């Protein structure tokens, strides 16, 4: 990987990190949980699931996707959404619940979607995106489109039935899907390891005959390389593939969760392998690397997020009447 390529990946990762940090700050006091009460002052309300520390996975995978490819995401989906090319400002506005957000304030963080870039939605239900992704890929195949579907999910999802049903489905119909297990090693506030029988997502895929790779998900170059191979195979019509990217959730389950249940050493070790720090160090050793260019990318990301916060703050709330829009066409108006 050359310096230019790695800088492009770093740019994606830095934008995600800056977004997550800003959203985290704006969400404190936004929900009553983990012994803290909502205080009404938060700009970002409700449960906010941060992908801080997991940025290398969406960056390394989505760089191989095209606008016409589909993507399904999870409750921890800001990174996937940004990496797929969605507008950062419209996502921040949605987190603020404003009319200018992607969903007009109807969805918030857990339901972010941007159909204009093929992002078919985050999901508040673990593993729910998998069957939807295989359906979207089935449509792509039936419609003979030159496009694929990338389906992100966490390690917790592999213990739900839809994981098995969707993987089996994708293989039976040889669908163009890349399954990406973003394995952050935590299922809400429970460590995943003791809850998963066998060897995890890649092994389960292999048991269905789906070729799978396991990769260090905090090494963006490794993710990029593995995802590139798998995406090329899926595009060539080889059927589904699975990538298990092992990373780490630096924050708690939601932004107000201090994750006090976690071993301090585990977090310290994870921070040692922070994907952005590693990518930055790797970049600076490459021929043609420019510390100034890296600094500029970092500053641009921060500035973009600051502008998004200002715009989201200034944006109007949705009209109350919008609560009755886009429910259903048949019977619209009959609310009781």
């Amino acid at each position, binding site marked *: 990987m050359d310096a230019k390529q790695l800088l492009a990946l770093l740019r994606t990762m830095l934008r995600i990190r800056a977004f997550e940090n800003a959203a985290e700050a704006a969400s404190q006091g936004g929900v009553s949980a983990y012994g803290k009460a909502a205080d009404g002052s938060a700009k970002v309300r409700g449960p906010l699931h941060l992908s801080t520390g997991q940025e290398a996975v969406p960056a390394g995978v989505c760089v191989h996707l095209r606008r016409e490819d589909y993507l399904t995401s999870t409750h921890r989906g800001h990174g996937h959404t940004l990496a797929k090319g969605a507008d950062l400002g419209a996502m921040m506005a949605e987190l603020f619940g404003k009319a200018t957000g992607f969903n007009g304030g109807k*969805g918030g963080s857990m339901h972010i979607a941007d159909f204009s870039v093929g992002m078919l939605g985050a*999901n508040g*239900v673990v593993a729910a995106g998998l069957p939807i992704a295989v*359906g*979207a890929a089935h449509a792509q195949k039936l*419609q003979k489109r030159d496009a694929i579907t990338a389906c992100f999910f966490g390690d917790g999802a592999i213990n739900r039935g839809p994981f098995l*049903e969707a993987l*089996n489905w994708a293989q039976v119909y040889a669908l163009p899907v890349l399954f990406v297990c973003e394995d952050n090693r935590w299922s809400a506030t429970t460590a995943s390891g003791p809850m998963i029988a066998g060897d995890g997502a890649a092994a389960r895929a292999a048991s269905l005959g789906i070729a799978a790779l396991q990769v260090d998900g905090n090494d963006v170059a490794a993710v990029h390389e593995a995802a590139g191979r798998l995406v090329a195979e899926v595009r060539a019509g080889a059927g589904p593939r699975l990538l298990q990217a092992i990373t780490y959730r630096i924050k708690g389950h939601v932004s107000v969760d201090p994750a006090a249940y976690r071993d301090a050493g585990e977090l310290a070790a994870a921070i040692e392998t922070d994907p952005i720090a590693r990518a930055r160090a790797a970049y600076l050793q490459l021929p043609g690397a420019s510390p100034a260019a890296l600094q500029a990318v970092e500053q641009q990301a921060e500035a973009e997020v600051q502008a998004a916060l200002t715009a989201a703050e200034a944006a109007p709330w949705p009209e109350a009447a919008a609560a009755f829009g886009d429910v*259903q066409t*048949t019977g619209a108006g009959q609310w009781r």
Partner: protein
Amino acid sequence: MALMTYAEAAALAVGHAMAADDQVVVLGEDVGRGGIFGQYKGLQQRFGEQRVIDTPISEAAILGAGVGMALAGLRPVVEMRVVDFALCAMDEIANQAAKNRYMFGGQGRVPMVVRMPIGIWDASAAQHSQSLESWFAHLPGLVVVCPATPQDNYSLLRAALDCGDPVVFMEHKTLWGLSGEVDASLQLELGRAATLCRGTQLTIVSWSRQLQACAEACEQLASQGIDAELIDLRCIWPWDRDAVLASCARTGHLLVVHEAVQVAGFGAEIAASAAEATGCKVKRLGAPRIPVGYAPVLEAQSRIVASDIVAAAKALRG
């Protein structure tokens, strides 16, 4: 006009929709063989395995894939075999299909018809006999249809496929062989009831197979000097408030009869709405809150027959 069964009318409707729009596809278990009730007969031979898709026994994936297909531009007809099995796909219908359009701010729609056959079916016991229309009526975003005749099955299925919303389409398992004239040019609007017989003293509202016992009861009531009006609701959501409330205002008495368990059944919603709006006297008649049993004597405890309806009507009239 042609004479055909309720199952044949359904297959005709899907076939016509598939011929008119190549984005209409069918997916579900055993659909290639025509479906377990013949409601897809001949469609795979005509349209091929790509569009009439035999699937694994994976209800969550069948329904979830239907959602993904719909978001990607197809118009899937999803077969759940019996409503009892659709419960394996409740997240996909309740949290995904019903809510995607709304929660994504209108960016995506789910034009999908999910067929979930309902009802007591000879000796099929507790997991193959339920009528769960009220579960789905409770979920914003869904349309719920319960056709009772071959004509309605044809016309309402076409309307369901055209409407662009996710539709729970509930055919009754003992109606598959019912014959009737079908006019394929007849278009019906979702949410419109049909008045099957006119009357002045009592309004009876029902749907699906339960209408047969209601019609029998109306004849018996007529012979006893009670003039009942019988309304086939046809759609559970949206339900035809105008037709039902107008009838209740005239007769002053409403009896709602359904095969589903009475407790928290949709009859409660109709009865309460009619009482609030017209001040009419109301009565509900549904199954007792017991699972459907296997032995004939046990199964019979869940059935509402004409004599039950006559007795309820008389009690209501006082």
